[in-house]
């Protein structure tokens, strides 16, 4: 079992999410997280999909994804140098006596407090998985009431780009042999 982060560029049409997500489900793949949004080109959306599964099956899913007419590009960013981030909101119990301690933790993680209620706080944190998990663990003892995550988004480092504009993007070139 390996964990993969896929960047999938799709035409921004209704129904395209169902086509993509359906493919994973049918092949027994559980999608761990999925984030979608428009790109620099409003006609193109980008999905970042995190999945865990058997390498061979994943390869098959990627190939099947590439066959979808509305899919412009699929790239497994796991293999490349990349940055990934996730935004998480955590509603945590915060009796007045505990607030100082929580605020201190939030500062250490360079997270933010975005709402203050009578008995709780909402903490916003952006980061990679390690950071988010660490913050979650640090806040657990206070009592986490609710947690919501956007799902991971990822981008290649440096000059490399994942865009739809490089001609026939269905293709991974130089690929005459399989294994």
């Amino acid at each position, binding site marked *: 079992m390996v964990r993969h982060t896929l960047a999938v560029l799709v035409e921004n049409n209704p129904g395209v999410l169902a086509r993509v997500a359906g493919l994973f489900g049918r092949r027994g793949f559980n999608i761990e997280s999925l984030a979608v949004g428009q790109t620099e080109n409003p006609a193109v959306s980008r999905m970042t999909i995190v999945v865990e599964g058997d390498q061979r099956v994943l390869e098959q899913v990627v190939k099947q994804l*590439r066959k979808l007419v*509305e899919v*412009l590009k699929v790239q497994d960013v796991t293999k490349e140098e990349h940055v990934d981030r996730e935004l998480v909101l955590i509603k945590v119990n915060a009796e007045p006596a505990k607030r100082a301690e929580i605020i201190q933790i939030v500062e250490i993680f360079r997270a933010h407090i975005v709402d203050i209620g009578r008995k709780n706080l909402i903490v916003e944190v952006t980061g990679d998985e390690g950071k988010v998990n660490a913050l979650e663990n640090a806040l657990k003892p206070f009592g986490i009431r609710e947690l919501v995550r956007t799902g991971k988004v990822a981008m290649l480092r440096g000059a490399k780009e994942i865009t739809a504009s490089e001609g026939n993007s269905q293709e991974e070139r130089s690929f005459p042999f*399989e*294994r």
Partner: protein
Amino acid sequence: MKKISGGEILVRSLKKEGVEVIFGYPGGAVLPIYDALHDAEIRHILMRHEQAAAHAADGYARATGRPGVCMATSGPGATNLVTGIATAFMDSSPVVAITGQVPTAMIGRDSFQEADITGITLPITKHNYLVKDVRELARTVREAFYIATTGRPGPVLIDIPRDVSGGKAAYTDPGPVDLPGYKPVLDPDDAAVLAAAQLIAGARRPVIYAGGGVVISGAHEELRQLAELIMSPVTTTLMGIGGFPGNHPLSLGMLGMHGTRYANYAVCECDVLIAIGARFDDRVTGKVESFAPEAKIVHIDIDKAEFAKNVRVDVAVRGDVRRVLKRLLAVLKGAAHPAWLEKVDTWKKEYPLEFGENGLKPQFIIRELDRVTQGKARITTEVGQNQMWAAQFFTFTRPRSFISSGGLGTMGFGFPAALGVQVACPDETVFDIAGDGSIQMNIQELATAVSNDLPVNVAIMDNGFLGMVRQWQELFYKRRYSHTELYGPDFVKVAEAYGAEGIRVTEPVGVSAALEQAIASPKPVFIDFIIEREENVMPMVPPGESIDKMLG
């Protein structure tokens, strides 16, 4: 510019795609389309069930290589198409299905006869469309036909809400298709061709394993040349039948679960397996770990997703099969493997396909059909024993002459498909080789056949059983025939009741006369062959076994 209705735009668009015939069934949501069809120069064949419309369009497509078109209303009409669409999908057949939908404003409200057919057919179409604006209709049709017929072909569905087909717009030709996410690659990579050629040139015991891709790409001639150049025996899948002449000295017939012993033995002992337009289906490979255990595998296919899907591959060449074979023919030199071919011939002599003498045998009937038609009939099949006997005992020499539901194994396919074939090939003799179970799944199409003067012949291998299931029960479930004995009607009377002809044959002596009578008849004919009830299809690879471990 003059505005015309969506229905008229659809008809014009279909004509521009060269559509000559639609297999369909009307209803409320397609009224504007049927209104436009009323005085259009497109033939419409009114089926008696939408499933049959999809199979007929599929049969037409498989016989010609041109797209077949079927049409149905929203809701139940559309869902009745589903089995036919899935059948076409599994066998890569270019079918365009057009469905009516409730008006756009009513979608999503559980309206009368609303079904989310684009959602339902998502996993069984190559692509599908819900047209929301009449101005997009012409372009959608152009794209649908392009997608259905290019690359690896497959069914495409266009769902048209009633206010779209009833709306008005000016017709303008949509021009050429440009889909950024869909650019089929037809020409192979040079390096891949050379790598394949190198492996093939080094082969001492080659076998070619040819699938439906050979037929689809029209590569039968190139395949024959390749086989003769490198002196390689050729085995085909069920879908590949007709892609290589069955009477050729290098032909091994079909491989796999009900393949010939010699095909399966040859695959097990070959050192290079050249898979062409085939997809290593489990009915072909048997136990996958011991499939072609000694072979390096060259895989030629237009669909990259097929490479290494089920079986490891040493060299993959992606491209249109015909183009790839042309390139290979240009770089390969002749070869000879006398010892290997001698070994294969010994197997052929030692293990021919056989059947007993007693009673009326289905294999004998199919041999007779081959003889009487001089191998020139177009054959469709149902599913079950009848299908396997047809594949084993008729010698197919032409592509597109054997039409059968391989991937999905759809009972009820053969008869409506035969109607589509007969529409496409009005001057040819068409036979559906059927089972008594399968024929009852679309028997209502007798009315379509009679009323459209489609003189198809149906040879029912009537064993009073769901024979193939019974065979498994006999072999693997201690002969506990649970719900496989089948009461059937008097097929002769049924045929007659519809205005067709019916013949019953109970003895071998009556077979050829009945076949000749059917062929000569201007009417559709059912021949009810009362065959040996418990005849089995042999040889057989038990499920999960290696393909050289055959029973029978």
